[in-house]
């Protein structure tokens, strides 16, 4: 009888422990859920792939988190570089997606010059302040917007990477930040799937070869793009 009681108590304690771990992890994940920014519809457009829905994503890249999208005081990490308004994006399947990034941050030489070039866009090009380009000098990189997915038979492959040229710190706008460079590019989505994007220009907090801190934190310089 005593052994039976001990066995039952052990089982209950084990179940409670596992349940507590599961609940804690689920709660932590829920708290980290970012507001999803769906793309804004622009109707349809004639493309090389036929008539497709056309949507636009408006983003901005800031040298710190005080611009407002993390709260007026900059949130938990006011000094962290960040994309705004959110890094959790949603776009429709089989569509032409235009991404427009207002880049307010300075920059320097990127560690891998591959990411100073445009890859995977609809026409192989991007537009910087109204002028087309497919590469920027590797020492003029502010950030990058690099999207990829895990190759899988369950979703279409997607790889897009566009360098965001550094802003001129000597030209300051009314908001106290440099006048931004506006970079615009488009890419095609395939079927539904989940993809990941981040900046490939390391400017984190010094950890993990400067890919720590904001670089490795969703909501700042890393995020997800869901094709629905």
């Amino acid at each position: 009888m005593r052994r039976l009681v001990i066995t039952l108590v052990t089982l209950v304690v084990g179940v409670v422990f596992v349940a507590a771990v599961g609940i804690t992890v689920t709660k932590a994940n829920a708290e980290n859920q970012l507001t999803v920014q769906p793309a804004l519809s622009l109707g349809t457009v004639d493309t090389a792939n036929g008539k497709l829905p056309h949507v636009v994503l408006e983003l901005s890249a800031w040298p710190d988190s005080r611009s407002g999208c993390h709260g007026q005081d900059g949130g938990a990490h006011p000094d962290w570089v960040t994309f705004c308004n959110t890094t959790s994006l949603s776009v429709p399947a089989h569509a032409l997606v235009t991404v427009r990034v207002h880049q307010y941050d300075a920059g320097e030489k990127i560690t891998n010059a591959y990411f100073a070039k445009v890859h995977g866009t609809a026409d192989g090009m991007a537009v910087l302040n109204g002028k087309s380009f497919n590469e920027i000098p590797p020492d003029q990189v502010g950030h990058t917007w690099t999207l990829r997915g895990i190759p899988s038979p369950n979703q279409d492959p997607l790889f897009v990477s566009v360098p965001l040229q550094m802003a001129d710190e000597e030209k300051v706008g009314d908001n106290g930040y440099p006048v931004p460079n506006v970079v615009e590019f488009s890419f095609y989505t395939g079927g539904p799937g989940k993809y990941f994007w981040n900046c490939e220009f390391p400017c984190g907090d010094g950890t993990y070869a400067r890919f720590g801190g904001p670089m490795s934190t969703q909501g700042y310089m890393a995020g997800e793009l869901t094709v629905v």
Partner: protein
Amino acid sequence: MSDTALKEEDRTPADAPRWWERGDVRAVFLIWLILSAVGIAFAWVPAWLMGLSASSEMDDVKMTMTWFTAIAMPVGAVIWAVMIYSLWKWRYRGEQPPPDDAPGFQTNPPTVVMWIVISAVLTLFVFAWGLVKIAAISPAMAMTSAATSASSGLRVEVTGNQWAWNFTYPQLGNIQSDVLHIPLGEQTTFAVSSVDVIHSFWIVQMAVKVDANPGAITYLTVTPTKAGTFEVRCAELCGLYHAAMETTSVVSSRKDFDAWVAEMRAVKPVSSMTEGGA
């Protein structure tokens, strides 16, 4: 102590059964035989689970896996057979709690010697097998930069970057791609490095893997034997999106590979800093 043992104690030395005539030994042997047969019959499963093979290196790995599994099965079966039989035959069924003093184990020198010799022979066998296989792939691993530059075949520079791979073809005008394209049936040498943390470059279906270390170049060589699209993964935990640090390797005929190279070379650079740029 079992009835069999008691009976054996009553017997004279001349009447004692030889060890292979003992019922316990025969029972354990029978269980071992069955487990070994089943294990060896399914020795192909681990290699099958490894999936498609796209290189001779992968073929070697799968063959090694199958042979080692087949050899290991009888060894493991000895343990399982003794354990299964012991749990059934000598389970204490008397009054609780069991007495503190249990019959002591008796050593059997011939059994110990046989076990050591068989284990040593098997260990030496797998050791020799491993040395032979490593020697077959080590020339590429020990290559110097000069040696790889002078070697025939395609050379691809692989750069690991949190969290994407990119590939540069120095012999083909330094074209770059996020997808690895290599020609079928031709030796390709990879010079692998990283610009940040340690990654590991792994072409899954070709069973070749080497670390990508910042500040250093590591080499590996492979000759793909199957056309198709295969997985390239990072096999060293490298941060937030390590699991997403995957791309594909496209193995195609020389003709298709040349067509891809031509397509990549046709892209003209348009810098944001040129006239008409930013």
